[in-house]
């Protein structure tokens, strides 16, 4: 079972170094991913989180083995911070049998231990709140964390879910990564009013941070995660950040100068500056090796074929797979 908090605590090196290990891996993974797309090795589309890596490492390093994570279309970074398993993600993106969902899910539809993702905006929030409800009913002490973007605040179901989370005092952390754009739409064309006020009006605790600094992010979220767990109260955490890459693959029509001006906030050089050069270089090297290994390994995996599952309703017959509980572990 993935345990990012344990992994983070067990890691050697300073806090910035440990964060850099995650963030450099994420960056390297996605940069290579975009190259692989150009090569034609990948299918469909994919959403990279280049520029937002601090959020992944800064939040998820506080989550333990029992905690639940729900992410969205832009989930690779969250996945790598959670699992530290680039092979199974890369294989999934290449559509291979060895991929985390055997090629069925692809970039946006992933499940690994207690992490889930889906490509429909908003609907994951009630799902995650329901998971928090289940954990509370089971008394597991776990919390659920769900990541959404600014644009996703357009979905009404987010408010329905926040209201219930607040009414029933559920241990849910909603992390809203406001990267100023939703696909091609700037925030000002899609959101009226004030983001945190929307959650506060429903009785959620709220917080806001404007940063792309991994260390700041990590420190900011320590007490937040702790309080959601301790108080079993929902918290809405707004992160103001910026997306430095395309929305998906190759579709960036934002003003070039706007994007260029934000490169100063790039979380990778920002965090790198806190490390000494040789440590940074070593971390990057390891990240690069791991990504190449993942690519190589994935290329060797076969493509899946439809096996026994010729009908989604067959699941009922496959009693052996998971017994009586809703959760079937991989």
């Amino acid at each position, binding site marked *: 079972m993935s345990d990012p908090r344990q992994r983070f605590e067990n890691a050697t090196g300073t806090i910035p170094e440990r964060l850099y290990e995650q963030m450099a891996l994420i960056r390297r993974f996605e940069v290579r991913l975009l190259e692989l797309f150009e090569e034609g090795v990948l299918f469909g589309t994919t959403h990279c989180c280049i520029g937002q890596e601090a959020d992944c490492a800064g939040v998820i390093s506080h989550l333990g083995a029992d905690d*639940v994570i*729900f992410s969205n279309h832009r989930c690779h970074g969250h996945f790598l911070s959670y699992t530290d398993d680039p092979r199974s993600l890369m294989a999934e993106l290449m559509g291979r049998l060895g991929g*985390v*969902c*055997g090629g*069925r*899910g692809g970039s946006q*539809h*992933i*499940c690994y231990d207690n992490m*889930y993702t*889906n490509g*429909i905006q908003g*609907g*994951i*929030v*009630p*799902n*995650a*709140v*329901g*998971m*928090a*409800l*289940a*954990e509370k*009913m*089971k008394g597991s002490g776990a919390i*659920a964390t769900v990541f959404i973007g600014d644009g996703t605040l357009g979905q*009404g*179901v987010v408010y*329905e*879910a926040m*209201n*219930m989370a607040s*009414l*029933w005092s559920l241990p849910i952390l909603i992390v809203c990564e406001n990267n100023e754009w939703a696909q091609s739409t700037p925030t000002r064309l899609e959101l009226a009013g004030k983001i945190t006020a929307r959650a506060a009006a429903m009785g959620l605790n709220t917080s806001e941070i404007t940063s792309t600094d991994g260390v700041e992010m990590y420190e900011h979220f320590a007490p937040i995660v702790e309080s959601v767990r301790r108080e079993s109260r929902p918290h809405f955490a707004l992160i103001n950040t910026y997306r430095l890459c395309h929305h998906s693959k190759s579709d960036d029509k934002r003003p070039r100068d706007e994007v260029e001006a934000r490169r100063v906030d790039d979380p990778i050089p920002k965090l790198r500056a806190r490390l000494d050069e040789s440590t940074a270089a070593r971390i990057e090297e390891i990240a690069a090796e791991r990504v190449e290994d993942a690519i190589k390994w994935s290329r060797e995996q076969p493509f899946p074929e439809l096996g026994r*599952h010729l*009908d*989604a*309703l067959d*699941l*009922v017959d*496959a009693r052996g*797979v*998971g017994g*009586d*509980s*809703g*959760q*079937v*572990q*991989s």
Partner: protein
Amino acid sequence: MKDNVLNSLNAGLRSILESAPEAFIMGEDILDPYGGAFKVVAGLSTDFPDRVIPTPISEAGFIGLATGAAMRGMRPVVEIMFGDFLMLAADQLLNHATKYPWMYNDKVRVPLVIRAAMGARRGYGPTHSQSIEKHFFGMPGLVVVAPSPFHDPGALLKSACVEDHRPVLFVENKLMYARRLQRPDADGLVAGMNVRSSGGRYPTVSLSFDDFAEADVTLVAYGGMAEIAVEAATTLMMEQEISAEVLLPSSLNPLDLEPLVDAVKRSGRLVVAEESTQTAGFGSEVISSVLPAAFDRLKAAPVRVSSKNLPIANTVTLESEILPQVADIVSAVRRIL
């Protein structure tokens, strides 16, 4: 306690809560003393206060919550007050609850039951009378089940909740709540007919005035149309000695094809009755599914009986003109004989 559908369902829910610790109930206005708009959950919040959770008016939201809870080992049973409101949660069903199991490579199960009160004939008007289950047929991974007074509604519900690992839409016709359960009399007859059941988790019940050897026509119906179909069969027998075998599936999706095909092969004639509008519904599916196996034995084109293609009007005169009645089934049968 009357031996009716309502009490059977209520007892089924009670038994679910007693036997499955992971089960809980969610929905609007389900607390005592109100006990739900149709009283199906009456008494349960008193006896299981932590496991009957009243929700805000957020159908998409609480079905979404139930889905998440089901993925984490719970067995939620959700009540949708009027089935008409289920469309609010259609995305949660199509792109969330039913997608996760297969899309995640069988890593999760979503043992979620959604009970929805469908159906008309109570003068509730265009937004509180529909039978919209057909719009949910053919979502990969979704089971649609409908009890009738000829089934054991409580037992069906318990199977759906405790034995099934898949999301189940459980369709309750609201006129049916007050109907007595149709149990075999001393001679083993139900409504004067011989009865048999296909068995299994969601059985198909068959009724025949004869010994099931042959029939002039096969009548298929479910839920609230079950008693109407039986009444039509009785009329046909009494007035014209036409022998109609009535098939009442409880699983609408997937279809339990064997008993359907078997019956149609024997009779050569098929009439399917449903309360919904006709297009791309239960009747279309039954007919298209039965055809490949029964084509050679068909003596006439299968016929659908359904509502007119209109919203369901509030006033009684229009409502009854719009809905399928006994006479519509009778005349459909006569047309193909």
